């Protein structure tokens, strides 16, 4: 794929903006972020783009490439057709700051709303014992690099600004599932919290989040659905519903 490529870059800020077309060199083996960097170094030195590790590990260079939420560092140039114009825009679900950089502070606010890990009071540091098979379920969710592509693509957030207040989004559903499945976390009603305080019920399982996850975390199948099923179990099974009320603990 060596040679010139056509790039259409969204440039602007929260007030206004427009697409700018540029032609730029691309070399074999390069990714979209490389080409954007070349534009920056040779044609638009003030082009705003967020990036860090350039290896798909930090989740900074999230943007939309031809309308699809992607990490620019993991999108290889040879996946495009010869002569195709590649359009790059900032994440659409969040306010734009400048050019390709979006204001993702929504996600940090949501992170504050999820109750943290609560360790067992009777275990001293160094005394924790867990089996590999038991930590693996949570470990899958801890692979999350917080690129927020799932948050960006989730139509509950993307298409309905008004939902943002009551809906935590897929990134935080896997956080809740991770804590729920943590062998030593002592908070027992995580699923209930997810349902009642973080809008789990608004998710209608279209799996868009799973599709865009660069870490291939099975967000819907392994986190959201299991939590939904168990919540439903308790809510609609009269015996368990009564049990949860009597015991005052909603250990489900």
């Amino acid at each position, binding site marked *: 794929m060596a040679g010139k490529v056509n790039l259409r870059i969204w440039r602007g*800020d929260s007030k206004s903006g427009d697409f700018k077309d540029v032609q730029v060199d691309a*070399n*074999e*083996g*390069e*990714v979209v972020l*490389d080409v954007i960097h070349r534009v*920056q*170094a*040779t044609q638009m*030195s*003030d*082009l*705003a*783009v*967020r*990036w*860090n*590790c*350039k*290896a*798909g*590990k*930090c*989740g*900074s260079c999230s943007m939309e490439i031809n309308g699809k939420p992607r990490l620019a560092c*993991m999108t*290889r140039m040879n996946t495009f057709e010869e002569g195709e114009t590649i359009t790059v825009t900032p994440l659409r679900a969040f306010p734009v*700051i*400048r*050019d390709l*950089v979006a204001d*993702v502070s929504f996600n*940090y606010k949501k*992170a*504050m709303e999820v*109750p*943290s*890990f609560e*360790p067992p009071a009777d275990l001293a*540091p*160094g005394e*924790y*014992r*867990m*089996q*590999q098979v038991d*930590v693996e379920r*949570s*470990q899958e969710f*801890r*692979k*999350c*690099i*917080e690129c927020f592509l799932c948050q960006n693509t989730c139509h509950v957030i993307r298409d309905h600004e008004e939902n943002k207040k009551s809906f935590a989004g897929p990134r935080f559903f896997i956080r809740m599932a991770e*804590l729920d499945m*943590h062998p030593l*976390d002592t908070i027992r009603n995580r699923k209930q919290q997810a349902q009642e305080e973080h809008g789990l019920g608004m998710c209608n399982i279209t799996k868009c989040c799973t599709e865009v996850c660069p870490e291939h975390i099975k967000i819907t199948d392994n986190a959201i659905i299991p939590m939904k099923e168990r919540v439903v179990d308790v809510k609609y099974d009269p015996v368990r519903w009564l049990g949860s009320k009597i015991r005052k603990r909603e250990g489900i």
Partner: protein
Amino acid sequence: MSQKLDRFTYDVVVIGAGGAGLRAAVEARQAGLSVAIICKSLFGKAHTVMAEGGAAAAMGNVNDNDGWKVHFRDTMRGGKFLNNWRMAELHAKESPDRIWELETWGALFDRTKEGKISQRNFGGHEYPRLAHVGDRTGLELIRTMQQRIVALQQKDKKEFGDAEKFIKVFAELTITDILKDGDKVSGVYGYWRESGDEILFESSAVVLATGGIGKSFKITSNSWEGTGDGHALALKAGGALIDMEFVQFHPTGMVWPPSVRGILVTESVRGDGGVLTNSEGRRFMFDYIPEVFKANYADNEAEADRWYDDQDNNRRPPELLPRDEVARAINTEVKAGRGSPQGGVFLDVSSRLPAEEIKRRLPSMWHQFKELADVDITKAPMEVGPTCHYVMGGVKVDPDTAAADGVAGLFAAGEVAGGMHGSNRLGGNSLSDLLVFGRRAGAGAAAYVKALKNKPTVSEKEIERASTRISEPFTREGGENPYSLHQELQNITQDLVGIIRTEAELKDAMDKLEDIKKRAANAKAEGGRAFNPGFHLALDLENMLLVSESIAKSALERQESRGGHTRDDFPKMDPQWRQYNHATRWNGKKIEVEAEKAKMLPNELVELFEMNELKKYYTENELAKGGN
């Protein structure tokens, strides 16, 4: 001053939000102080996230022969005894507690059969010692610390109604100056990357936790953030950097495709059985076992292979020699024409482990090669070569409190601090270093603030000076593009101050750096102040130049080869040189180097080694006098 200025006041300001910075912030908060955490990127993106292999801590979960004394010995050997022994001692003793503490904050390490934290083998470590999570240990560490900060904020919200009453995270903010009142730190000054607006923190204590300097080099595993900001801030505030000639080139970076050249291939590949071969198919590391390590490393394939299952009766494979040895060996093989097609050597795990096992143990590596290089590492070997990874040198600090030498109120921890790793860092010792000394820096800063009688104040003159510096890139006439200056700088350091050095090349480098220094002082930013990477780079250039000058000058002085410093004109390690650390200081115009006497081990630590081994590192005189 027309520019908008935000003002804040905190007891402690932590610059850097990687492992060391966040651990320092936790400690300062737990001591009851208010803390500002400053990240150059978003919260949780710092370079710690890239650490793959694990965190070294002698917990003895896999082999109970391990203990702090063994870890200490390995660290000193890895650093070729130039380490600040007190730092190495504290690190070896405290690492297990720092790892266990992470579990109480929610970290989920891989487990042993007994349900303890699993530990893996790594270069230079005598026993399996690295706590790990697959090959994404750094991510686990930073996420745990990030979530610990959130937990403390949630607690503050419950108790005081304000989550940010004691800890506030300032994301995407760059600090350009440390402000002083006489000889004491009084605050820091910088700008919001997003808006370009300026910001002042009044604070009596500042913890530098800014990480590394890799962006001064062309081929590096570091992200754009590794521009040596903390190193430069310390120099400009009157502090000293030590051991700057020691730069670690990690032996295994990706070599293809060109755009990811330098990105790390974790040492765990070798720890888990991967072997290095040249174009002739030969496991060449057997040819490069140095005299000092012959007793511990296998000299034949059969023994090396047996070691993975029986470590008590076999010597280690030479692929697991310390990083400096492996990097030099690869460099030599490639230069001798026995390299791989893309100019590296082969690292093969596909013929050593079943495919499923590779994907389980090395998921990120599998992913990284599949997506970036279109190579399936379960079927084919990787091509790898050395990449600038880590700087052993850094701010000269007091081992116990992390207080910077010569600047009251300044502290440093993690990669930006020097001394702990001597001339070469062992893999896995970085993550534990962040935790041990991050905590000590937080405690050191807290104790300093509490004991301080008169709070230093920030003068308008200092603010004016700092503010002018930030706006300069916009007011310069006809200056050069910062991107091309940066590229030029990277080529000079890579070619002339890189993995193999000579006097002539180092002198050449110094002349060229001097020239770039002049031109960088006139680097021009186009466009406006809001999120403008060209403007950011124009300011970062000065930091990279101060660091490069420190490295080149220290490297010229040291007429021997040791760890991360190899002189083609002085290829041998010389005990005479072990007696000195190079300290660099900035006199306002240029970097000056001074040789400072390195201390001998105290008696109780001398006893941990055989006399025969000590003779390789210490002079006869030193050994005759005995320990301190």
